[in-house]
């Protein structure tokens, strides 16, 4: 199950963060997202470590914690997407599929003429799409 997704701007400014747990662990999740940013920066700035994923938008598993797995994605426009899940057995294809759909939803949200680049995403349509994509996560491994 996905417990948190986040969009972070190129100056590490949060653009969107949404958790999907009943429990009151928002702070903890925010902290995880925050820590993952450093991992992304390190990977991107030290290409050797990223190995075969060089320049690919999908950054793969950023780091596993005891209870969560954290995945990252970095767009060509230097925007980071973070996915935090509690699933232990996650298929790579599912995560890639998730990010592809998430990126499309993000692309539409920033295409709203009233969206100001670098400002938080407040779109209701975006929130709805994200919720749909999150719910569909892992349901079709084929995607």
């Amino acid at each position, binding site marked *: 199950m996905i417990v948190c997704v986040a969009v972070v701007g190129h100056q590490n400014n949060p653009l969107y963060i949404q958790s999907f747990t009943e429990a009151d662990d928002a702070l903890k999740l925010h902290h995880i997202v925050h820590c993952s940013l450093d991992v992304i920066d390190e990977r991107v700035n030290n290409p050797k470590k990223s190995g075969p994923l060089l*320049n690919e938008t999908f950054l793969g598993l950023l780091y596993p914690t005891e209870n969560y797995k954290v995945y990252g994605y970095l767009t060509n*426009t230097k925007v980071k997407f973070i996915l935090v899940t509690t699933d232990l057995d996650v298929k790579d294809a599912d995560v890639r599929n998730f990010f592809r759909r998430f990126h499309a939803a993000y692309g539409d949200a920033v295409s709203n003429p009233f969206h100001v680049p670098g400002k938080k995403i407040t779109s209701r349509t975006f929130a709805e799409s994200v919720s749909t994509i999150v719910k569909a996560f892992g349901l079709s491994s084929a995607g």
Partner: protein
Amino acid sequence: MGREVSESCIDSLVTEMVFSFCNRFYADKSDLAARRIEAIGYQVGHQLSERYTMERPRFSDHLEAIKFICKDFWSEVFKKQIDNLKTNHRGTFVLQDNRFRWLSRMSVEPSLETGQEGENKATEAMSMHLYFPCGIIRGALSNLGIPCAVSADISNLPACSFVIRIKA
């Protein structure tokens, strides 16, 4: 293939936008009109580069990003690629389109009555139409992390060169 509209929609919208800003909103203040038109292009380019770079690896340097503008981006927007790309390897790139779509139907008549003054006016009117595509290029590159200045030059209609100077 996504949604399409007739080319006349975008052509007439851009024509009217340039006309309104130059003749209604900022009549006789062509520099202000130019800045607004460029800003509109900037927003469009910024948004388009997000859309057109989905599902492709990140660019590793400026040249790769410029090549993307010349090929994929230009094809999406103008249905053809840039014909010629030149660079001085110090941050200046010249993109030449031998048949720039938005100039392909633009023409005036060399006229004896209007003379030099008329000629200058016609040239200025034409050049106002270039701020929009310049803004698009600047917005697209800026969103890819490449701040730059873009200018355009109509050498020989309908050919057009865009000069990109990347800010250090």
